[in-house]
């Protein structure tokens, strides 16, 4: 239904159109949601995006392959390492090259740390939206530790550009393994700390149970991926389905939800953080020795052809579709951003709920506008 059509109900009470965003405390950046309200009940919604559109895909056509790598960091800017991994592996696939084992192990460790960092940011802001103002400070405390590891490794905290096409540019720094292990050791207790604040809290459960239910069928139809899909009870994870980096070497479980509501997605993401910790611990104990960069040449000039490569980013399936015409620049580069496609489910999830649930649902979708708009 077009929210522009304001109709009058029998009682003579008007529906109101409420603009949430792009400047709103809990639309996570510059999302603009147009809500049609009957009282406080949402009867229609429309997401208006594009406030952060930077034409990243078009820029890709005018940059050489290595030049474009830093740009992907700026799509999902809270999970730059994952973006970098996806892009580098896609180009490697196009080249027919493979990163050496040591590089793949380090990539796995950093990407899983990034998943934890991204989920921590989600947890903090999601709880903040629902009114719990304390968890965000706790989660940022641990996220800081991860960012410190990134900073020591490659000099950047947020837009890391951690990997290079063909492997890694930098060897791990002295004490890398110890620091990662120390983080994992402490992190186990910290997750318990978050859960104590929220998981059994009556108000938290009431605010998230049966809110924004996404049925398995709907989730598949909408193309949802990542925790949004798994929260609906579908065991689908690219790390298991099409293993990349070194994921086939490690043991980990894929948590799924039962009802597909906000609480299930919360539980799924909490468990994913634990599983990521498990992967990191296994990986850090078995980093093989050897070179860190495959021989890909100074000038990267893939043969003509096309490739699609996707990874399990913290927010879902992050895919890169690259068409090469044999020059140093891609002919066409397309990013499949999980946030953008997960956001499709928003209208379905939000209908019939109250305004307060809208922010809970935006939070549970875990969108990043840099990725939605690109």
């Amino acid at each position, binding site marked *: 239904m077009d929210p522009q059509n304001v109709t009058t109900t029998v009682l003579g009470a008007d529906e109101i159109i409420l603009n949430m965003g792009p400047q709103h405390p809990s639309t996570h950046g510059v999302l603009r949601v147009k809500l049609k309200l009957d009282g406080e009940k949402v009867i229609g919604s429309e997401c208006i995006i594009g406030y952060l559109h930077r034409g990243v895909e078009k820029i890709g056509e005018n940059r050489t392959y290595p030049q474009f790598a830093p740009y992907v960091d700026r799509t999902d800017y809270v999970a730059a390492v994952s973006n970098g991994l996806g892009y580098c592996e896609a180009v490697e696939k196009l080249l027919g090259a493979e990163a050496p084992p040591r590089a793949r192990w380090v990539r796995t460790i950093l990407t899983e740390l990034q998943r934890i960092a991204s989920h921590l940011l989600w947890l903090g802001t999601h709880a903040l939206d629902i009114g*719990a*103002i304390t968890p965000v400070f*706790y989660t940022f405390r641990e996220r800081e530790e991860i960012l410190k590891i990134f900073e020591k490794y490659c000099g950047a905290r947020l837009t890391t550009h951690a990997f290079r096409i063909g492997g890694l540019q930098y060897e791990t720094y002295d004490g890398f393994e110890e620091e990662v292990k120390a983080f994992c050791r402490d992190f186990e207790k910290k997750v318990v700390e978050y859960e104590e604040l929220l998981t059994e809290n009556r108000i938290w459960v009431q*605010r998230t149970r049966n809110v924004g239910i996404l049925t398995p069928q709907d989730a598949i139809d909408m193309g949802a991926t990542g925790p949004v899909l798994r929260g609906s009870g579908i065991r689908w994870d690219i790390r298991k389905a099409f293993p990349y980096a070194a994921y086939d070497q490690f043991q980990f479980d894929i948590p799924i939800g039962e009802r597909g509501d906000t609480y299930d997605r919360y539980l799924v993401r909490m468990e994913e953080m634990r599983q990521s910790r498990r992967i990191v611990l296994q990986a850090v104990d078995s980093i093989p020795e050897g070179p860190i960069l495959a021989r890909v040449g100074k000038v990267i000039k893939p043969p003509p052809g096309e490739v699609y490569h996707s990874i399990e980013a913290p927010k879902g399936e992050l895919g890169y579709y690259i068409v090469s015409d044999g020059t140093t620049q891609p002919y066409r580069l397309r990013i499949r951003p999980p946030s953008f496609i997960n956001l499709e489910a928003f209208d379905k999830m939000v209908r019939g709920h109250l305004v*307060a649930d809208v922010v809970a649902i935006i939070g549970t979708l875990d969108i990043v506008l840099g990725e939605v708009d690109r």
Partner: protein
Amino acid sequence: MTLLIETLQPWLLPLVRILVVFAGLSLIVAYLVYAERKILAHLQVRLGPMRVGPHGLLQPIADGLKLLLKEDIIPAGADKWVFWLAPAISVLAAFTAFSLIPFAPNFYITDVNVGLLFLIGISSLGIFGIILGGWASNSHYPLLGALRSTAQLVSYEVALGFSLVSALLLSGTLSMKGIVEAQAQQGVWFAFVQPVAFFILFVAAIAETNRNPFDLPEAESELVAGFHTEYSGFRFSLYFLAEYAAMVLVSSVAVTLFLGGWLRFFPSVRWLDFLDYTPVAVFLAAAAWCFRAVLRLPGTREWRWQRLLLLGLGAGAAALAAALLIPARFLPDIGVGQAPFPVLATIQGVFWFLVKVFGFLFAFIWFRGTFPRYRFDQLMNLGWRFMIPVAIANVIFCALALALSRQLGWHLPAALWLGTAATLLVAVLLRQEEG
């Protein structure tokens, strides 16, 4: 001249009291904001205000000045007069209600024989400030905020009213002073014989003041700032003032009705009399803390003002402690009978009153740091389907217990506890029915 003084005599003392209460309250509210920021900060592994003055002690003054100097914007579509009037109503209602609170046996602005009724009435008026402010802004978020607070305040007012009734039944008077005196006489704070009423009053008080987890009218993440989204500068600070004054007010009411107002802990236990000296100990401890902080500050020139301020504070606290211990023979009789330290005896009541009020305020802030926010319908469910029935049951059982003890000579506290058990049973049944 003498005539003038004699004419003014009946006005003078109340006027001084009003000024003292008003100034004290403003100070408490200003530093309540500071305390909130500090306590929340420490709950959240950070430091809070540290820049303005030592440990940010001058932050409230800086904030107040900033708000006063800010541009005062009235939106183009707003109803100017109502927009102007609304915050004033909120502040007036919150401050007027304090005229009824007995801070100490000899320190209150007025004692009315229908005090509690007047108090409920005047504090309900504060809602108008919120509703009118939200409506006059002519904007969606404030309107939704105002609607929410209307519904919320009306619902929780009912539960609040019922919880007050049991204190009335036990004391048999509507006078606030009389209620405290009744608690002194019966030798028990009503919170210990009416825990359910106390609990309901506490929860309803949080809802009445729009505090987390019931802060829906100004839910930041949903409604930006709720009813005061369009307010800025001085008018915004009036709302701010009213909200925090209301927090102090509900805490004061709860303390007066259920926690024995100005009474010391266990006032009738002789061997605990040393507690009377707690104010002295508190001031001495404050002085010691200040002096220690001075020693810990770096000795460079740029910290000079911080050191001076802390030294001044410490000296002031020490001087107050000393003043409390001036023996009776150095002072004219100020009407406290045979007390060895008249100043201490005078300050006692206010001190204990404030200690209990601060306990409440701490809980308010603590909850804000801990709980997520209720949703609108959940709030209404909790109010109408749980709190109000339980409050009514409690009143009924309390009245029954009173009747049993008066007619049949039952032991009153035992009867009241039996009533409480019955109320809790009702509460459990209600919960089960909800599933």
